[in-house]
């Protein structure tokens, strides 16, 4: 007496079956999913991140360049006015003076 596939199928289906009400389990899984972050490694997402990162870098370079250019113009005007004075001041600090006040008469109006 041998059992064929059909008979095994019938026998197995006569066995115990799991609970078929999935509603509570569904709620449990949905609740758990809400607390579980998804992996953000999709191709689309990484491309978007890369694109936004590139735009931030480009903006930084552009603003630095503009700032440097403007600085050059303002710097030129300032140096035109101050070059001579600053050079003279620096020179006065660095050149040793042989001027001596010890042999001079006191001021007439100043000291009593």
């Amino acid at each position, binding site marked *: 007496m041998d*059992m064929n596939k059909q008979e095994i199928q019938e026998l197995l289906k006569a066995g115990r079956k799991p609970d078929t009400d999935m509603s509570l389990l569904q709620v449990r899984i949905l609740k758990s999913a809400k607390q579980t972050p998804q992996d953000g490694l999709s191709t689309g997402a990484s491309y978007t991140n890369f694109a936004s990162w590139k735009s931030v870098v480009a903006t930084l370079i552009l603003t630095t360049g503009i700032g440097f250019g403007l600085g050059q113009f303002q710097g030129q005007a300032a140096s035109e006015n101050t070059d001579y004075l600053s050079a003279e001041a620096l020179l006065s600090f660095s050149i040793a003076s042989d001027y001596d006040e010890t042999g001079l008469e006191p001021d007439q109006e100043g000291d009593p």
Partner: protein
Amino acid sequence: MIGTRSASGSPHPQVDPDADILQGLASGQSSALGTLMDRHLAAIKSCAWHMVGDEMIAEDIAQEVFIKAWKQAPNWQPGRAKFSTWLYRVTKNLCYDRLRKKTEIYPEIIPDMIDERPLANQVVELRQTSTAQKTKIDRAMAQLPDRQRMAITLCHYRELSQIEAAEIMEIRVRAYESLLARGRKSLREQLKRHKRELLEG
């Protein structure tokens, strides 16, 4: 990375029946997860239940499968294996893990599922008979090696094609057929003595 190739090594030629909800799932829509569960939760839980023989553990496994699907959906690569195949594959691996960790999932004597409410004696007797028969089938299934039990579950309970079952088990179709044949032979030997009473009961 999910979305692996089929067991034969070639990309899956069929259109994925779950393709319509995968985009929603990848963008974090819980309604898409709800639809996915409407389609597959009962089958996945049933598959896990037949493998581990325990309602609570089967529910835990089913939950883990769908949370993995939710988590990894943005990485899914369409055009390869079907999403449902991947779900079954994860289920299979989780079942193997559980069975490995707890080798005595099935107790020596499977407890009878007797309703404890007061019932007429005749009904109780009938139910006891039925439960005893079911217990014999469960025991016979539980005594199969894990891989043979998985092969039997996919074929006889889930009624999947041999190609799909082989993909889930990550083996060639020939190997699946052989596994199934061995599983059936073991079951046949164990159930032969009870065949008549089981089929009549």
